[in-house]
């Protein structure tokens, strides 16, 4: 087994920074921990789940997709130079974050390829870490992941009781990362792993839930649970799997950029037609779409559940809507 000490993990970050890679990891920014570019290994903060998910590494909150400029009489449109996207290493992503890109790959490469996402994805290596923290909002086990799920990570670290980490190079990218810095890793048996926390929510039968959703497009449950939703986008924006976006032009008619930025299905105007007709005209329909998209539609289309159980939406919901509780309710109803 490959072992890396905590100090060497931080050294590895220093080295990668030195190699002019973009190194991203949980970092204290003001009062919140966010995934941010690290300039030194010492900045890596592993004791809290970052407030925003690591999806923004591949799917930034707002990005330019083209720029336009009128030159003389003619309009000139310039593509974004995606070759400039840097080689990136993501550190310290727990399974619920590390697992999200492998879910999103499907929609982003379905037929038309979103090269903004895919280029970043191609150039990044994910160093995941087994989760030993967790709180009562976590429910990764319920959606089929676990605190030690390696799937999604290129290199997976398991914290050991002596402070070092057991490493498993899951993919070729991970193996390459280890191979290039092999002096920092040692071969050994390693100490005992730090135990994972128990989760309040037990594993759910997602097939059963999906079936219930299929049969209950109209159900009083939607009104009961979703009418207290105030229609903000907090849950969608901090979700590792939500990927809806909006496209807008900013600038003048002669010179500006077109930008793609996060959008949320909870917003009242999300589906509003120019005519004023709105297919999802009330909040519980919008909330239903959120649940359906995550646990039915995405599975129908791509064979995956659009949720990693990170619990961020539960912690952030202004009115305490608890998606884990909703899933348990459905699980119970679907007997």
């Amino acid at each position, binding site marked *: 087994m490959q072992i890396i000490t905590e100090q060497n993990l931080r050294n590895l970050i220093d080295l990668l920074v030195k190699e002019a890679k973009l190194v991203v990891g949980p970092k204290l920014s003001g009062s919140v921990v966010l995934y941010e570019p690290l300039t030194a290994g010492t900045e890596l903060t592993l004791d809290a789940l970052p407030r925003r998910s690591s999806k923004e590494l591949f799917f930034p909150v707002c990005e330019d*997709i083209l720029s336009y400029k009128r030159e003389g009489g003619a309009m000139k449109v310039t593509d974004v130079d995606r070759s400039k996207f840097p080689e990136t290493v993501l550190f310290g992503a727990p399974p619920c974050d590390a697992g999200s890109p492998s879910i999103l790959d499907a929609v982003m490469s379905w037929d038309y390829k979103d090269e903004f996402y895919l280029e970043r994805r191609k150039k990044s290596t994910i160093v995941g870490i087994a989760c030993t923290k967790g709180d009562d909002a976590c429910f990764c086990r319920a959606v089929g992941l676990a605190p030690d799920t390696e799937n999604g990570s290129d290199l997976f670290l398991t914290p050991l009781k002596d402070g070092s980490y057991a490493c498993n190079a899951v993919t070729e990218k991970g193996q390459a990362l280890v191979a290039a810095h092999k002096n920092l890793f040692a071969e050994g048996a390693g100490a005992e792993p730090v135990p994972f926390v128990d989760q309040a929510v037990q594993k759910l039968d997602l097939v059963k839930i999906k079936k219930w959703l299929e049969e209950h497009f109209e159900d009083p449950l939607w009104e009961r649970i979703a009418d207290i939703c105030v229609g903000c986008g907090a849950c969608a924006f901090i979700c590792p799997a939500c990927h809806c*976006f909006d*496209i807008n032009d900013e600038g003048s008619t002669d010179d500006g950029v077109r930008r793609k930025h996060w959008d949320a299905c909870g917003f009242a105007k999300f589906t509003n037609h120019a005519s004023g007709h709105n297919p999802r005209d009330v909040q519980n329909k919008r909330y239903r779409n959120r649940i359906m998209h995550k646990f039915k539609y995405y599975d129908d289309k791509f064979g995956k559940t659009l949720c990693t159980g990170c619990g961020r939406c539960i912690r952030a919901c202004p009115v305490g809507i608890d998606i884990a509780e909703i899933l348990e309710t459905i699980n119970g109803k679907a007997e």
Partner: protein
Amino acid sequence: MCESKNIYLPNLATIETIVDETPDVRTLRLVFQDEAVRENFNFRAGQFAEYSSFGFGESTFCIASAPTRKGYIECCFRSVGRVTESLRRLEVGDTVGVRGPYGNSFPIEEFYGKSLVFIAGGIALPPLRTVIWNCLDLRDKFKDITIVYGARSEADLVYKHELKEWQERGDVRLVKCVDPGGAGPDFDGKVGFVPTVLEEAAPSAENTIALVCGPPIMIKFTLPVLERLGFSDDNIYTTLENRMKCGVGKCGRCNVGNVYVCKDGPVFTAREVKAMSQEF
């Protein structure tokens, strides 16, 4: 520069002509600026595109011209929002962006040898007009062609010059109508709502395909009429319009249940529509 293709990058097109169909509906004829694009741009009737007005954003409309007419495309829109208003401010010679064509299309080859009934209301004629011209250009491949088209008032009828042309052609039966109260003194069509007029016109369902497009309320009342006339759900086609941003199945806006209108649609049979979650 990168080799990967940016799916959000539009082709540039120049506005060649502008036609005002009604006081607030306008048709733009667009010619691609790049010669290679102009020659290679192919689409099928029923597909849509994302049209951009730089500085304001993109808007989704069907391609309203027929695929059989090469060298240009046409879009037809009502000025209701930020993008459409800005498109309306553009003049001949100005540049717009066009991404597309996207979505599926009407399976015209499957209609060969059959009769066609087009039923449209208001601004929903353009998505069918592309099919109508496509079929008229291949007239001998079809049997009877009937067009039932209505709008709120005489002024709201789009493509007036083409309606006249269709009326004068011997090989098309055009039934045009306006809602009660919408007819001028010289109006030569019928007065009444589209479903009622359709029932009166009573086209035969025998070996016939119906293509319906219009506001949700019109569709709602037209489908039972078609049923009474003997059309099966598989022989009724419609095209759905939902709000879209990306047009390529990513942005998560246009879905009706698990159906992405932009990828799986916009053309559906009545059977497919009835199978969807009723959320549109």
